[in-house]
């Protein structure tokens, strides 16, 4: 089936540093998402993105977070500065329409020390 790729698979950084998580969504998809999952817990929606803009974001999408997809390249999640509580697996997802199936990438495990 359609594949969403995420780079890197693991990232370890020191608290206060900046990190950029990269997502390569399915090629014809128009909606892009980021989710956060702390080990053993539920998925939590962070943000969705369509037509170059953030459509919706949750309370977890702090001011230190930003997303962009410049010129159809990677869909990125940037955290600047990072905090200890940002340690989690971040999943990117994409869909071709708003009610269509969201396809998830394999996740990036972020560890903030």
């Amino acid at each position, binding site marked *: 089936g359609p594949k969403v790729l995420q780079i890197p698979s693991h990232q370890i950084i020191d608290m206060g540093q900046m990190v950029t998580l990269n997502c390569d969504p399915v090629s014809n998809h128009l909606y892009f998402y980021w989710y956060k999952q702390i080990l053993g817990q*539920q998925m939590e*929606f962070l943000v969705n993105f*369509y037509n170059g803009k953030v*459509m*919706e974001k949750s309370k977890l999408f702090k001011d230190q977070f930003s997303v962009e997809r410049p010129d159809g390249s990677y869909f990125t999640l940037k955290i600047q500065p990072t905090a200890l509580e940002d340690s989690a697996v971040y999943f990117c997802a994409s*869909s071709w329409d708003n*009610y269509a199936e*969201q396809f998830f990438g394999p996740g990036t495990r972020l560890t903030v020390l």
Partner: protein
Amino acid sequence: QQQVRQSPQSLTVWEGETAILNCSYEDSTFDYFPWYHQFPGESPALLIAIRPVSNKKEDGRFTIFFNKREKKFSLHIADSQPGDSATYFCAASANSGTYQRFGTGTKLQVVP
């Protein structure tokens, strides 16, 4: 505030039995209810989803039962197989289908 509640937290059934996973929600504007499964170390994948225009949706061994009045929906896995062992998440969203609130998950184990 947990907008989507899921139970049980874990469930063990014998091979061939029907596993029943339950979810409830608060927000009456929710109009899209997907179920995902997630195997250890992998990403979630959509299993089946329902819109409230119907009370039931079937796909092979998987059936969603939806009760709009009680704001509840459940996933029934018939003839459970060991390969069904995974964590199952329900979710709900409103208006656009894009902002999905997930339940806390049910860890299902199917014993041969």
